[in-house]
């Protein structure tokens, strides 16, 4: 599969030693925002992956250790969030989308 898996039906999170998971929730006005487009951009700004937030606003990427930017697109705009992923760990982030 090359495309984005449904973020509503992801398997339980298991992080292997070689992976660096970035995951989190998109929130607007304190409520989870479903259907936002979350893009993972590499250090040079290159697109790496994109998923749509689940019904609970959840998203997950299997990245690599290093600095990344999450670009979240929603109806009306987009917001960038910087994040650093670590090997063998799941790094959690909350993306706040303006109301």
């Amino acid at each position, binding site marked *: *599969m*090359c*495309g*984005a898996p449904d973020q509503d039906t992801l398997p339980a999170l298991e992080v292997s030693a070689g*992976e660096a998971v970035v995951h989190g929730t998109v929130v607007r006005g304190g409520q989870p925002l479903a259907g936002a487009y979350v*893009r993972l951009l590499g250090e*040079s700004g290159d697109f790496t*992956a994109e998923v749509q937030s689940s019904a609970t606003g959840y998203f997950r*990427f299997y990245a690599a250790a290093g600095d990344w930017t999450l670009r979240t697109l929603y*109806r009306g705009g987009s917001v960038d969030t910087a994040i650093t992923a670590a090997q063998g760990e799941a790094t959690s982030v909350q993306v706040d989308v303006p109301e």
Partner: protein
Amino acid sequence: MSRADVLVDVDWAEAHLDDPKIVFVEVDEDVSAFDGGHLKNAVRLDWTKELQQPAVRDVIDQDDFGTLMSAKGISNDDTVVLYGGNNNWFAAYAYWYFKLYGHEDVKLLDGGRKKWELDGRELVKDVPERPATQYAAKSPDLSIRAFRDEVVASIGGKNLVDVRSPDEFSGKIKAPAHLPQEQSQKSGHVPTAINIPWSKAAADDGTFRSDDELGKLYGEQGFDDSRSTIAYCRIGERSSHTWFVLHELLGKTDVKNYDGSWVEYGSLVGVPIQNDTSQKAV
């Protein structure tokens, strides 16, 4: 062939949803997307169940494609407008597939599902009843499909365009970052391939960049117009997106999609692979 022949925008699509000779076809890897809402009168193509053979890793054959189109109620003279999620990756793959079997009038919806959703345009749950047709697929046009031996023989000769992300190209990661990284393939890329990620050809909302921008992009990255071209990615969807750009939008000649892509190439015994990372992934 010009941009207007192969690409429609969301306004055009919205104005043609009820046109009986235009069939909107949604192609997603996530079939629940269609169930949750789709363009009015659109039908679904399921790439896992309908566009792949069940046992063998290959496209379905000519007769089966004809049977599939007949069952979907698509006629040879219909205009097929493809769209989907993931910036039209799978819709572009289906576009290439329709061209492989000789469908005359196929178009992509610029920006696909994402652009449509971000615009807040209407999605419906009703599924249209389309009477079955007698669709006749043509024999596969292998001038747009590359196989592994041709890829190996093209090292140092053709434009080999690796459209994956820079981190997949270098060998740092093995798959797009929304997927688990446990893969059996070796990581890296075909020697002499140039890395022009598919995403460079599209804006954040999934729409294609202008012809001028696209022409400049490939020129700057070392694309040689005097050479034939093979595009590849991991399983052939993203490279269909770039095949569409090169062959359909920019009108470059002799451009093939290698749908076997890295899942096949990275599993072959003995073929040359370049890995740019210091710590070689196993």
